[in-house]
């Protein structure tokens, strides 16, 4: 088991690109080696050691590497990018692109995560105990396939466009979401416990289940009747009929 503890040295006003904070990059490395990994502050190249105090205990492969982050990381982007295994626990808020393209392992945020959390992720698990920003589990600009696998759980709320272009995997939001969750979906499953508006537009495949209220429905879904899911009766819709879609939308 290798445990890496990271704390910010000072308040960060300019955003930091820290894709090197990942169990795959840290595994088997000494404190010094981790401190010398590259990071960018705005357009200035620097090292992780300049920005953070880093303490390492033990040495292990990525699967047995645990990263504990304590403090305010709300200007630190791309934490856990492309990680394949291991564990990241963040006691604080994080900036955009948390866990993007990750294919395994586990990230747990005790605070909020900004936009694009879990974008294009292929596997693993992402738990956000606070709120998530826009485009949770989506595809970045131009991408036709967003989240492809794995699981994202948000205990708070999420903003607009949850799971845009999603192709697989599962997103659960315990609170409310902004408009257009599951936009252009092509697979996967989204469960929203709270309220939302205009879900599932342009979807061609995939499933969306909404337990709260839907403020506004897009007029592109066909009502198929009622259906029981786990003891709860939902109205079942299919669509988007304009895109010739076979997506399923369940609304209470």
């Amino acid at each position, binding site marked *: 088991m290798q445990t890496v503890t990271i704390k910010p040295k000072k308040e960060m006003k300019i955003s930091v690109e820290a894709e090197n904070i990942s169990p795959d990059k840290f595994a088997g490395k000494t404190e010094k080696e981790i401190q010398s990994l590259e990071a960018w502050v705005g357009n200035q190249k620097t090292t992780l050691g300049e920005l953070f105090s880093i303490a390492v205990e033990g040495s292990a492969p990525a699967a047995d590497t645990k990263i504990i982050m304590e403090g305010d990381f709300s200007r630190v982007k791309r934490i856990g990018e492309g990680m394949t295994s291991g564990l990241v626990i963040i006691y604080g808020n994080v900036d955009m692109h948390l866990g993007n393209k990750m294919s395994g392992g586990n990230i747990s945020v005790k605070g909020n995560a900004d936009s694009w959390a879990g974008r294009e992720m292929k596997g693993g698990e992402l738990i956000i105990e606070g709120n998530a920003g826009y485009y949770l589990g989506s*595809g*970045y*600009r*131009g*991408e*036709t396939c967003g989240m492809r696998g794995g699981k994202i759980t948000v205990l708070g709320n999420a903003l607009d466009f949850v799971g845009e272009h999603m192709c697989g995997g599962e997103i659960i939001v315990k609170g409310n979401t902004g408009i257009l969750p599951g936009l252009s979906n092509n697979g996967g499953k989204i469960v929203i416990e709270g309220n939302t508006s205009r879900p599932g537009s342009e979807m*061609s495949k995939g499933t969306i289940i909404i337990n709260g209220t839907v403020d506004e429905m897009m007029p592109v879904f066909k009502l198929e009747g009622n259906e029981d899911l786990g003891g709860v009766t939902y109205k079942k819709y299919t669509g988007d009929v304009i*895109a010739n879609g076979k997506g399923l939308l369940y609304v209470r």
Partner: protein
Amino acid sequence: MELIIKNGAVYDPVNGINGDKTDISIKDGKIVDKVSGKATVIDAGGRLVMAGGVDAHSHIAGAKVNVGRIMRPEDTRSGIKPRTKITRPYTGYTVPNVYAMGYRYAQMGYTTVFEAAQAIMKARHTHEELEEIPIIDKGALTLFGSNWPTMDFVREKDMDKLAAYVAWGLLASRGFGVKCVNPGGGEMWGFGKNVSGLDDVVPNFDVTPKEIIVSLMKANEMLGLPHSVHLHCNNLGKPGNYKTTLASMELANQVKASKDRQVLHVTHLTFNSWGGTNWGDFESKADEVANYLNNNSNVTGDMGQLIWGSATTMTADGPVQYANAKLLHAKWGNGDVELEDASGVVPIFYVKQISIHAIMWAIGLELALLTKDPYKMLLTTDHPNGGPFVNYPEVIALLMSNKKRQEEIKTLHEAVHKRTMIPGIERELDFSEIAIMTRAGTAKVLGLLDTKGNLGIGADADISIYDIKPDQIDPTVEHSKIKSAFSSAAYAIKDGQVVVKDGQITSTPQGRTYWVDAYVPEQDTSEMMKDIVKKFKNYYSMQLANYMVQDEYVTHAQVIKAGAIPVEVN
């Protein structure tokens, strides 16, 4: 500046050099018969030496390419390489930025590339991009197939005016040759329709695609342009289109070549050699097309080989792109160029396990292997339609090694066994044939063989050296070495200057832009201009004075004179 390349295993099919150890002397950017003792020596050490690569059909600059970039930010993110002291940043894979276009071609040992389609009205944009592409020489073929003036003059059967229009269009666009895309179809797409064959009548113009193609070939030969008509056939992308392709090729018999080259170049035949009647019975008819080429000497073609993975289809064929976007449920970019043409851009992902893609992959290779004379079938991927040009080394390896092809076939959809001939074709090309398909042949088809595609005395000193020793390698077995050697040239020399060493860019000179200035009698031009002025007055959204590409846009021009030579009157 003098340079001598010693001990190279030189393949120069034009001059009958077939792997012999020959020294190549270079002075002031040209190949000469000898240099002084002060010349810089490059010791090739028995490695493969060829002329710099020449590509006759690639979409490297202009409006469509840029639409592709705008539509595909995800593609831009896939090929990023930061700037260095010598190079500017690279981005993209199927639609790279302008700098990466030049660098990546040079790294493969290519030194001359022609953009395959520019509308006259969009030519300024094309030249703005060509100006920024480093290292390589380039040029652009100008679209004439659906232009209103073309169709008017064809209907009136006024060949003098048509020739004058072609000459003026090349001047207006600083273009190199005549491109003709789905003739008549571009116009009909303005009404949401398409032509379905060579004899369909284009409404409002009362001409057929057949008449357009034949008339443009005649005008092309009247002007004695270096390149022939460059045709993207009607019905591209529809099963059964090989019949249209063969019928189009037969039209070449109606016109006599003005030069020692073909009268018609039919491009990206992978997309035009399709049998069957629908996607269910879709099959390869590459054998029929190759057979025609084998029996006729006035037509050439290029492969347009399909490459697995991401591609961006882009063409002036608007209707076919609408059909593609519908079929693939993909992003669709559509363009209309007023009186001239249409265009469309659709991203695609070629998958080994999709039967249609597997068959298309086979068609490209069959065309190259079944056409006996490599001068008649050039190596292209119709970048980025079949796949990005950086995959040429993959295509070379496939053509040189049946073993590689058989390994690949094992991973493909089973349709490749039933509906193509590729599993049974054993031909393996040699270095000389590859040199023809990528250099000598392309230069000949373009009409540039005096300076490009060969290493004869007087030719441009564009030379590539690859890190393989032809006498010590068996390309049929060691295909991965072939691929990696062609991917990253040991040396690329452009106009006598080393631009690539060990696959790395070492200098970035600005290449030349080729365009053709064709002479026509004054009175033909003035008659023709009366019609053009009327078109601008009545229909165009811009003024004639703003239409012409000025010389400021072509700072390193290489003008080729053509046309009937005027009689000097004292």
